């Protein structure tokens, strides 16, 4: 065989750290009602991986995710996402940053009921300034990938919960963002649908050029993660690696960062 074809290049000698949050502090409220939600949190994610953030309800997962997504400011610490230091960006710059770099999946799907499925999916493209016709075409392609190509014309409320979340997946991926964040994507679904959706999601979202962060307390879907950050009472207490589902392009060894 021609050595040219047999020589496989080193897939990923040292995976790139694309999210690096360190010493994050966040409190809500004032005076006696003040609650300290994030306590000196350090959180890292690498390109190509699916990172899960798990922990009991109220421990601060959503708050941390909001900070990383640039939708909420923090009281202390640095958050660097794709070489951007979020704390130093203006509101307008953060908005542009989100539009370009982040795909969102919400617990309640948040599809706009008066738009068709395809129109919903096209929203991130429209935000980026793509023309309506082109955006719709790409949206239908994205819908094909989640198995809903035939139903692009329907309204979201005609779809089951699982199907709606698949539409949301198509919307999160349609503009091919390098970071996808999901907050409790299976919480509004029953166990079976939750697994179907996560199975599909882990297939279509996983990409060498993308980091995926999933917040969940649904332990049935933990198996889809490459790594899991365990959070409790505002702190990351442990980061575990799951080699079982680690794809070939994600071969790296690194020290697990533990918060002190």
């Amino acid at each position, binding site marked *: 065989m021609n050595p040219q074809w047999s020589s496989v290049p080193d897939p990923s000698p040292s995976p790139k750290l694309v999210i690096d949050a360190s010493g994050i502090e966040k409190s809500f409220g004032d005076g006696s009602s003040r609650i300290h939600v994030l306590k000196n949190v350090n959180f890292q994610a690498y390109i190509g991986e699916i990172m899960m953030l798990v922990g009991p309800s109220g421990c601060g997962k959503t708050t941390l995710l909001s900070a990383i997504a640039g939708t909420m400011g923090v009281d202390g610490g640095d958050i660097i996402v794709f070489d951007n230091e979020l704390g130093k960006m203006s509101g307008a710059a953060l908005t542009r940053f989100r539009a370009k770099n*982040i795909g*969102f999946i919400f617990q309640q799907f948040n599809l706009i009921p008066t738009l068709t499925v395809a129109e919903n999916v096209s929203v*991130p493209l429209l935000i980026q300034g793509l023309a309506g016709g082109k955006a719709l075409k790409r949206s239908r392609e994205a819908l094909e990938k989640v198995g809903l190509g035939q139903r692009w014309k329907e309204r979201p409320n005609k779809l089951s919960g699982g199907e709606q979340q698949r539409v949301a997946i198509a919307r999160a991926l349609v503009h091919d963002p390098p970071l996808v964040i999901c907050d409790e994507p299976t919480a509004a679904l029953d166990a079976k649908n939750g697994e179907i959706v996560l199975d599909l999601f882990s297939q279509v979202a996983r990409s060498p050029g993308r980091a995926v962060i999933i917040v969940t307390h649904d332990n049935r879907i933990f198996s889809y993660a490459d790594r899991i950050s365990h959070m409790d009472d505002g702190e990351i207490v442990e980061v575990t690696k799951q080699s079982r589902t680690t794809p070939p392009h994600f071969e790296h060894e690194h020290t697990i960062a533990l918060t002190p």
Partner: protein
Amino acid sequence: MFSLALKMLFGDTAKYLMLVAGLFFATFLIVQQASVFCGLMRWTTATLKNVAAPIYVVEEQVEQVNETNPMRDTDVARVRSVSAVRWAMPLYSGIQRVRLADGSFKTVQLVGIDAASLAGAPQRMVEGNLKDLRLPNTVVIDELAIERLSVDFKDPAKRIKIGDSFEINDIEARVVGICQAMRSFTGGPYIWTTYERALQYTPPQRKMLSAVIAAPGKGMTMDQAAAAIEKETGLRAYVNRDFGKNERDVTTGKTTRYGDFNTATVWWYVKNTGIPISFGTTVVIGFIVGVAIACQTFYAFVLDNLKHLGALKAMGMSNFRLSLMLIFQAFTVGIIGFGLGLLASAAFAMGALKNGQPPLYMPWQIPVAAFAVIQVICMLAALMGIIRLSLYEPAMVFRA
């Protein structure tokens, strides 16, 4: 982006219809009431439209055309003697009662004009000959008079026509012509006769002359002639801006605007009657109804969609573009509500024009101003939504 905004708007049928209905009512109230007001104000100047003369010379205290402070008969000659005046003729104008064949009385606006020149005669005759006014006991009536002075208007055979007679203060008046005229403020028809006969029709008084109508001399503007008349006679001279151009003074290059009797009359009614207040109140109510319904409904619409708008914000839509979307939505319902309101006003106007009642006059300024008012309402509504949305943190979208 804008189509997205429209789909969100039209998708919420109930609120969309509510918004359009509110703006529709506001438009209709504002346009219709303002038009009736303008129509009414126009009626106050009906004599100035019907008696076509460039200059009205009246007693010094007179402020508007429906007010008649009698002048001396010699005042005609005094005005005539002003060199800036080409001609000056007497005018009688007053409200009189007509007795019909069946014994009933009707109020009319009697106009007496100079028999020789017929200055101030009706401008558009429909039937008959104006010159027949020089025959004894003759009058020219307007079309409204047919309706008012016929014993039975519904029966075409019994309608008043040329050759028929009625009485004004027991003196016979034979109809020799029918003309078109604008309806008077008091609602009565116009009846033309000669000046001398008008005095016979009128219960005798010491002074009978209502006004002297006049025209500027050659090379003179109305304004200049009016100024000269005032200076030389001490009487009050108004110009009738509808008849005669406001020519530029070649010597000074300036146009001095002399008191227009139309404007003076309308202002007199605006200042001295409750009419503007009652109509103004309705217009203000229209505005308030519009603001209340539109702002409240639009705000509810924004609140309903806050979750979705917040998701758009999280997904990277700027506040600016979200604001544009809200403005566009408000603007759209404004256009639709205004359009329908204007259509309804037009339908109302058709009816009014057909019946001659109520007075209606819609200069282009009314729809333009109403459109501006409606859009102000819509922008207010949009602004409330924009403020609410700007307070919405994109991070809230994660908290269902």
